[in-house]
């Protein structure tokens, strides 16, 4: 398998594992810690944009970008 194909399969396996076992159920009222500002999995948009432009311009490789999610799960 090419390295690219291996990367795809690895990511898919991780995703499948996450979806099934391994994750404790977190109730909506138990999300206080996840709601903390330090627990934002997405950096402020600008910082990320600038960084990605710098890395993209200076490096030959790429990195997949973020999804968001987590947080307090309100509304």
């Amino acid at each position, binding site marked *: 398998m090419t390295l690219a194909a291996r990367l795809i399969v690895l990511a898919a396996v991780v995703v499948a594992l*996450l979806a099934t076992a391994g994750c404790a159920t977190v109730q909506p009222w138990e999300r206080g810690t996840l709601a903390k500002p330090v627990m934002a999995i997405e950096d*402020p948009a600008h910082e990320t944009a600038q960084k990605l432009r710098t890395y993209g311009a200076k490096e030959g490789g790429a990195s*997949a*970008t973020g999804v968001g999610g987590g947080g307090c799960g309100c*509304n």
Partner: protein
Amino acid sequence: MAAISPRLAALTAAAMALPAVHVRAADAPGENPWGVDATHLEYSESGGRMNVRVNQASAVVPIGESFRLKANFIQDLMSGASPVFNAPGPGGKTQQVLTGASVFDNRKAGDIGADASIGDNQLLLRQGWSKENDYKSTWTSLEGKRDFNRKSTTLAVGFAFSDDGVSSHDAPNDFHTRIKRDFFAGVTQIVDERSLVAVSLEYSYSNGFLSDPYKLVFVQSSGLLRDARPDQRRQTAATVKYLAYVPAIDSALQAIGSLSTDNWGIRSGALELQWKKELPGEWLVNAGARYYTQSSADFYAPLYLSPPGGAHSSDYRLAGFGSIGWLAGVTQRLTPNFSVQIAAERTYRRVGLRSGGTGIDVDNYIWGLYLVTLQARF
């Protein structure tokens, strides 16, 4: 070091920069839906090389409860020298040949977007443009997101398409075109009350004129040739992010690992570790380190003894190299509606840290940036 005619502007780093297609706002929809941001960023490289000054402004406007409009405007001002090719120097050591006197280039870019939130679903649409003397770009991106499991799981898929024209100062209206298609999928999953993990995958396909019009290649036997890269590039990247709150130190720790590969032979990996902590008085500090490594492209060589058949490039960005850097930031919420953020980063690029292929010492340099952002939310 020999000088090259200033007409050969070499500020192609910016010309080759990726459009910010996959940047998503971290702001939760609903609360304080109006927003205005302004950012100033300065980037510089050691050894009298490139300097970039960036100013950016963006705004978010809500339309009813379900929609948001976004607009973003960026202006870059670039100056400084940049490597053009490598040549044999005294004592058999390869040396870099840079552009001469400072060259200025001015880039303007903007994008507009619309977000729709309906129940657990979100749709994000963006359209962007970028223009400078010798480079223009238009891009479009579409992303869909959905929350599952009472918002414990977030799934996102996206697609972006960009269409660029690259010319040169010698022939500014003679554009070579290239297109890029990006596919993205990712999932964020809450692991337990204090940690979460995110996995994302990206595939891109570029086609057209992918070479750098300002770079040359030195051939011992025959002289200089233009940088000539393949007219097709496929890249695949995977990123895993893990974020956990550690009560013992009242801080969050984050690890981001990335791997990428492409059909040019460039394989890269990155690992970033970050610490984030809230301090009394509405302060937030973060600090971290990043390690990066890549192997050189199959068709890269610092210089050639005899004319290369096929693709050839001596661009330092396609060489084998690695880097280590630190990053740090401070955010302060001045009032419930205003916050300010300062961030800095410094990276040491070293050929010795490469994961494969070749590179040359003289390509080593240090880059640093700092940025200041003001945010208003109503």
